[in-house]
């Protein structure tokens, strides 16, 4: 399929796991119209590699030691490197998907996906579109609708917004003050706010909780 009018899609693979790197390189290397121009075991190495070997599509693992996949996405954007990125991960949580999309990923694939899906994804994304499998889009939609807070955290957030102290909340929910504090900390982290007051106002603002509750 490869001809002079359609140069092969140049692919860069970033994954900290050598077995995955080797497997992916072998598999994609046998595909017509695709060329694996390089593989990197971390975000920094990938950024470095872009200078010498510009790629069209980047296959990016999310969980890596040091610079994570999300960090790499942000760094790419900061460095104004225009590359289409497909997140390729072996484990997905709603949060992973959500954050990857927020950081500008163009596609999301599980490592267990069949080869055909993967080839399709690379072509679609290279063609300027986005590629998300159906169950991922469903979860993403769900995630966008809901907050990423757990049921318990939502409960805590409700009480927080009513001005209750950790102790009061603990008593009401029959859990310890420390547990409440952990919940509050994770709420603050998830809502990306700096303190509990801001957490409450942000939650109300975003409609996560009702004001009159």
């Amino acid at each position, binding site marked *: 399929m490869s001809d002079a009018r359609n140069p092969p899609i140049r692919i860069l693979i970033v994954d900290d796991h*050598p*077995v*995955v790197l*080797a*497997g992916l390189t072998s*598999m994609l290397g046998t*595909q017509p119209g695709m060329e694996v121009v390089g593989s990197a075991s971390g975000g920094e190495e990938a950024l470095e590699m872009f200078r010498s070997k510009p790629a069209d599509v980047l296959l990016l693992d999310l969980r890596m030691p040091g610079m994570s996949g999300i960090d790499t996405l942000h760094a790419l954007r900061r460095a104004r490197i225009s590359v289409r990125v497909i997140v390729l991960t*072996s*484990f997905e949580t709603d949060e992973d998907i959500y954050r990857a999309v927020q950081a500008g990923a163009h596609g999301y694939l599980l*490592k267990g996906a069949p080869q055909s899906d993967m080839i399709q994804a690379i072509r679609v994304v290279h063609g300027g579109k986005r590629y998300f499998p159906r169950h991922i889009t469903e979860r993403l939609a769900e995630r966008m609708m809901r907050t990423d807070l757990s049921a318990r955290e939502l409960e805590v957030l409700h009480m927080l917004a009513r001005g209750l102290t950790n102790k009061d909340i603990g008593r009401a929910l029959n859990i310890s003050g420390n547990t409440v504090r952990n919940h509050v900390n994770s709420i603050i982290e998830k809502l990306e706010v700096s303190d509990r007051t801001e957490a409450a106002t942000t939650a109300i603002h975003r409609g996560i909780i009702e004001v009159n509750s």
Partner: protein
Amino acid sequence: MTLPLWLRRRAVVGLLASLLLALLLVGLRAYLHSPRYDLPYRDSFQQGKADEWKALGGTWELENGTMRNDSDERGAKLLTGSPYWRNYSVEADIDLLGSNGDAGLIIRSGDEEEGVNAYSGYYAGLRTLDGVLVVGRAQHGWMEVNKQIKDPNGIRTGRWYHLKLLAYDCQIVAAATPLSQATPTSLAITDNDCIPSGRIGLRSYSSGGIWRNVVVRPATHQDLVAMLETAGASMESKPNNATAQDSEPLGLHRIDEQQEESRATSNHAAQSIESLRVTSFAKPAIATVRGVVILTAPRLFVQDSTGGVYIPQPKAPLLKVGDEVEVTGEVHSGDFSSTLEHATVQVLWARTPMPPVSVTAFQASTGKFDATFVEVQGRLASKEQGPDNTLILDLDEGPQSFRAILNPGRSDYLFNKLKPGSSLRLRGICVVDPEFTRNLTPFVLLLRSNEDLEVLAGPPWWSTGHVIAIVFAALLLALVVTVVYHRIAHWRLQGALDERQRLAHEMHDTLAQSFAGIGFQLQAIRNGVLDENSALLQQLDLAGNLVRHSHEEARRSIATLRPESLESEDILSALDLCARRMVEGTSVQVVVEREGDQRPLPLRIADTLFRIGQEAVANAVRHAQPTMLTIRLKSSENQACLQIEDNGRGFAQENGLLGFGIRGMRRRAQSISAVFQIRSRPDEGTLVQINAPLPPRVTFTTWPIIFWRYAREHWIDERRSKPADSHSYRG
């Protein structure tokens, strides 16, 4: 690894708190050890209070706002104050009771014991024997200087002297003034190696004494100078050992002499007290008895070896307990003892007091021991304040009840300490006179001082207060145990969850990645194989499927291990979430039902139920192709029942991967002693049910029962028969 923020904050708060506490303690110590702590001090003898004084020897009693020691003991002391008092003065009015001893004040006293010079400190006293003011230093030994008092009559009994003693640095000044005069006699010593601090004391030697208006004030150098100037006293040097004098032989000598004199004047016609009872009743006869004073106040009693006699309104010199006297008066016989009226009392000599007769309360109640010094034991029934500031103890010994009357004053403290129900030994004068008994009890004991009261045993431990305290302690213990138990359970769980998270990460980073990589590699190989080689292609496809399946298994294991997927308090919502994830992209409807109370499950059980439930849900979604999946949790007091039901195609035989899964679920169920059931028929769906017994809830009230059961099972039964390992833990 750095400490978490909250821990650091807590450590800082803890550090600050302990610093503050240490400061507070240091401050408190400095305050209590201050050389001016509680100064100035003024006695409260006038109010009938002297609880702060501690006696070493002597019979110290309050009388009309004075402190009185009736004994002729050598070196009787009564002490009070702070051992840290340094520069101060002590003054008091003193009246001597005996004509061959001394009485005075101690300053900077410490290290006191019962005995003549058994203390370290400075003593200033007035000595009747040679009419001198004596100042000296005692340190379990005695060194003194003395000076004739400025009074032609010397020092006499029955007369008040004002004595002031001041200690500043290493200078000790004493000044004595007869109350009617203005000229003080002063004496000052400089002790180079002085005792720096100590408390104060009243002390007498071979003579009783009366003290009043004891005042202690902090002293400055000006005070010292003023005292030295007004007195015009010359500074004496340190008392030296050459003048150190032990007055013991001299004192004894004089007493012997006096006794000889007394004997010479005594009436040899004395009769025994018992014989008074046989004197004619017709007209009052005059009789003379000789005996020992056993009580002076509120009544005078004299006793000899045959019995005791009451002497109302005697013509008598100042009497002390233990004085041997000769009494002449009119005999009046009472029901149980005699009285000697209009009696004249003559002191023969002082001797040790008479020992008490040990009797039972019943014996005493017969009246046979009326007016006699007795010792009785009894159990304290109640105590009360009597008239005239006296203290009354109601006692009984068996069926016999009696009263004891204590003098006021220094007994207050002891009195307050006495607990009803205590067993006491009392010494006192047995009196059957209705004036004291008020016809409430057959007899009354008049106690001479609080030395006559001895607590043999406290009240029995099962008194109401103790039982309440024990109950409270038990409740507190129960509370503490419950809290600690839950704390430990929580820690253990947290540890397990942390470990599982670590394991999940580990599996993700190695196992799952390897499966993915191998899958890609197999795919690459397959891509290179020509289509003609169909047998090889089939094998490669199979290998690829196996790897994909393993990858999925690994992913599911990781999902199970992740704590965030297990909101452990609520496995139902966790299973719901898990099921929804699995059916994503299909049309399966997931229904969640909850029955029974929402009691939080023990985490071990919740965990196991979740993992079994997850497997069951996965089996249903993967194999049964249902349209509806129901997850049901029924919990009761002692059992939790989880059901996963689908309306899929069911199965007849557990084999292959399904069989593996079911065996795994069964094994997990066994680990929490749960009953695992699976019911399925082709085309009729599948029901998986786990009945897990719940351990009794450990609460404030139930834990002792649980503990007892546990102890019985594990410690007592174990001795009878070695049981099979009843507890299997999740491996």
